[in-house]
């Protein structure tokens, strides 16, 4: 690895005009903000769609939403949240902002490609949103886009919506690949002096491994998306079997719908961890900083991230237990799926053990982090139901699944997103977010989402199938289930509207927030040690920081302060013999 200290040689593309500074910017911090803003805006669209769906489920007929619109909202909500919000904000947003700052680089290694990545992402979002305005509307195929249904007449948006969806995904994959090359290469090649891999904050580890997963898994979505696009547009039969629809034979033959499912989930399961691993990393750092305690079992945490990443490629078919694949696969995939629970559980234990004997400050980021642990715990434990093949059989495609994945990869990562924004906003803007509004936002979001999704599992036990526009005249569903659905809808609407508090806080604090100084949380990692806050172009002024220690020296015995920044050498701070050297 080499170091680029000499600013004279560095191609920093110091921006001069407004356009090159904020629009066609190659600065990772600006690109991060562009990514995050776009992701949050498109996420708001998905949030509104979910509110509409909840109105239909909780109070059928209360809004003018027919089955077509319902299924379109369902599909767009899912796809936007998973891909265009969560993936984009963790990798494109936090990855872009934090990786160079945390490893002590001046920027990403390929700034131009990084800029292109954002613009491709924006185009993919625009193509996606354009599908709301084409004849037939957006696709209503469900976010899994299973053929044959996704491209045949009985599904909403099977004329243009599905084409735009597939094209948008392909563009997104190109964007994610360009960004991903940057993040991984920056971690591998642009770490500053002394920043060994095992001194990196867990945030960087999480995003690093998640990006590798993305580079290897997104091709599966690309492959399946491209083949389905050809099935739709030029009439090939990759996934399309002989079929007869509404009384007429379609001009397809021999294709394998289940092949699509294998490809989709070969992408889809790593995708879960592409979202979860950055969240794991970020939350580890938040907990350590705000509990003022070194993260417990750092090495184990790193190995847990790596082994979860590796295992995530051999569990995909647990989404397909009742898909009609060879039933003997179930034995293998149930076993691998439950094995992955071990490193995941270890991470939960280590977060708790970081709290234990800590010096806990319940700041807003910390509140969100602890809420994450509870939510993720519920989502993880219910995952054990669905991963264990025979238990999955009655529960699959019921509301149990909906509750599970919203807990584990909807709410839990979003809580981390909120916590992280409250944590790093001072670095990004130089001002603190308003504490009172933040706490209000926290309580509504945490308790509200728990009230939404915990009872929802029981609708799944009951056997209520998911993706139903209406539940009329099913004798096995008691009337009380409708009352529960109405309750969930009310809470969901409250939680949805309360997100305006967060948006207001972002805007209000940008102008009126208390000045934060460079390191308001007294944290040790490099991003808090920049010469200016917010960091200027090039991040570090004339010379790169030199790292002397890991990122978790909190409460070091003998040190004067309860934290020792990574740049502090052993000579600068009296440090007693410590007991964790190897």
């Amino acid at each position: 690895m080499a170091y680029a200290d000499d600013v004279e040689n560095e191609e920093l593309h110091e921006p001069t005009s407004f356009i090159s500074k904020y629009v066609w910017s190659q600065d990772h911090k600006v690109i991060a903000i562009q990514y995050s803003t776009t992701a949050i805006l498109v996420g708001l669209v998905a949030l509104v769609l979910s509110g509409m769906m909840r109105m239909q489920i909780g109070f059928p007929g209360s809004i003018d939403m027919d089955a077509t619109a319902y299924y379109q909202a369902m599909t767009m909500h899912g796809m936007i949240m998973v891909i265009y919000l969560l993936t984009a904000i963790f990798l494109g947003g936090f990855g872009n902002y934090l990786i160079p700052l945390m490893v002590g680089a001046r920027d990403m290694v390929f700034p131009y490609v990084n800029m292109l990545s954002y613009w491709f992402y924006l185009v993919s979002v625009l193509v996606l949103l354009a599908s709301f305005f084409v004849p037939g509307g957006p696709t209503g195929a469900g976010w899994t886009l299973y053929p044959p249904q996704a491209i045949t007449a009985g599904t909403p948006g099977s004329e243009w919506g599905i084409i735009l969806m597939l094209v948008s995904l392909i563009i997104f994959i190109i964007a994610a690949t360009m960004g991903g090359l940057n993040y991984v290469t920056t971690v591998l090649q642009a770490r500053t002096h002394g920043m060994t891999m095992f001194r990196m904050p867990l945030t960087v580890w999480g995003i690093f491994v998640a990006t590798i997963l993305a580079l290897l898994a997104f091709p599966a979505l690309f492959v399946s998306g491209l083949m389905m696009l050809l099935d739709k547009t030029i009439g090939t039969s990759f996934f399309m079997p002989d079929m007869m629809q509404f009384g007429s034979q379609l001009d397809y033959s021999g294709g394998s719908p289940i092949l699509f499912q294998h490809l989709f989930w070969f992408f889809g399961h790593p995708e879960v961890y592409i979202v979860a691993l950055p969240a794991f990393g970020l939350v580890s750092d938040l907990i350590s900083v705000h509990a003022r305690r070194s993260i417990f079992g750092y090495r184990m945490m790193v190995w847990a991230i790596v082994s979860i990443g590796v295992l995530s490629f051999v569990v995909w078919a647990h989404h397909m237990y009742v898909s009609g694949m060879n039933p003997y696969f179930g034995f293998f995939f149930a076993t691998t799926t439950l094995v992955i629970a071990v490193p995941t559980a270890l991470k939960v234990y280590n977060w708790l053990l970081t709290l234990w004997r800590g010096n806990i400050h319940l700041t807003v980021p910390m509140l969100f982090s602890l809420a994450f642990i509870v939510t993720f715990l519920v989502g993880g434990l219910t995952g054990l139901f669905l991963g264990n093949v025979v238990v999955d059989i009655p529960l699959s495609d019921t509301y149990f699944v909906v509750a599970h994945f919203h807990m584990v990869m909807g709410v839990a990562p979003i809580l981390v997103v909120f916590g992280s924004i409250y944590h790093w906003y001072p670095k990004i803007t130089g001002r603190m977010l308003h504490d009172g509004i933040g706490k209000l936002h926290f309580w509504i979001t945490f308790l509200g989402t728990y009230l939404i999704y915990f009872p929802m599992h029981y609708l799944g036990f009951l056997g209520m199938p998911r993706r139903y526009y209406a539940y009329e005249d099913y004798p096995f569903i008691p009337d009380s289930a409708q009352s529960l659905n109405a309750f969930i809808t009310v809470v969901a609407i409250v939680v949805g509207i309360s997100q305006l508090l967060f948006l207001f806080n972002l805007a209000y604090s940008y102008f009126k927030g208390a000045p934060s100084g460079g390191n308001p949380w007294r944290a040790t990692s490099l991003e808090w040690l920049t010469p200016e806050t917010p960091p200027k172009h090039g991040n570090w002024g004339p010379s790169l920081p030199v790292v002397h220690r890991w990122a978790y020296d909190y409460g070091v015995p003998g040190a004067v302060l309860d934290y020792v920044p990574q740049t502090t050498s052993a000579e600068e701070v009296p440090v007693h013999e410590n007991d964790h050297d190897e």
Partner: protein
Amino acid sequence: MFALLAKCHDKALALSNRGRIHMTFAVILVAIVIISVLFHFLSPWQATPLASNWGSIDTTITITLVITGIFFVAIVLFMAYCVYKYKAVPGRRSEYRPENKKLEWWLIGITTVAICGLLAPGLIVYNDFVHVPANAVEFEAVGEQWRWSYRLPGKDNTFGRTSVTRIDENNAFGIDPNDAAGQDDILIGGNQIHVLINQPAKALLRSKDVLHDFYVPQFRAKMDLIPGQVTYFWFTPTVLGTFDILCAEYCGIGHYNMRGQVVVDDAVSYQEWLSSQLTFADVISGGTVEGLVEQGQRLASSRGCIACHSIDGSPSLGPGWVDLYGRQETLSDGSMVEVDGPYLIESVVDPAAKIVSGYPPIMVAYELSDEQLNSLVAYIASLSSDPKNSTSIQPSTEE
């Protein structure tokens, strides 16, 4: 100077920790545990009463609930304890102990044991699930958007060969007419299948169009239907009665309305039902002398019309056919139309031309012969109770 700085920080943080937020948070965590556990035992929403042999699946769910429940309670309570006990106090430091390999390995060990406790019973029961008993009786369920039909192998206990490409209005199942094994296959078109109580049944699943899933909540077991492939699962019904079959794999706009019924019979009523069913041979030979109305009825069934147009007055995706003929309907553009022969024919041939208000414009155009169209109109008209309408069909069918 450092000491002074540290003091300032402590003061600032003590301020940010003011109030009883640690206490509040810990209490809320404990409350979450208590309420969640109480909810589990007291809520009216529990598993639908079982009606098959798969009580063992329910047992695995219970085992999973117990083990995961213990972890949930222990972890959240421990967190509440930490938040309360280790709240930030000015001047206090956290313990500096970055790792404890022994503790971590212990935790890994306990987790692994718990995981095995979940997995082992699960795999044992799954082994039963994938091994169909030798005495299981087969039936075939065929899914299409958005209804069910069924086939029994008949006296020879063998299903005739099928292919989607052979399906037409005389052969709704696509059975090979040259296959002797198919002649005695019993065909059941009306969404409802009967099975015998306490007799293991193997469901062979086939789809004509897209993915579906055969799901009876009371039976627990379910399996997808895949076009181009035959999938299967088995169950033994243990309770007499009628149960809904739901589609549990999203299959397009009518997914939520794709329902069938399975009737669990005792031996006597099962035989009675079975004896009234037609075989494939009956169907292909018996279709020669039938009236216009019967022809229309068969067409409506084979072309899947009744998936979206109910014939029993229940709500459905498209306008129901009971008492439709002769009625005044409001169209989506606000104008009125009387439902008569020409209007019905237009609605089949060019469905988008006139959409009845309140229904989604999703029907595809059908290419039918004039005779077929007339038979369909005759059939729809026969579903009107008003005798005036029934007589008025004559002019339109003779066009």
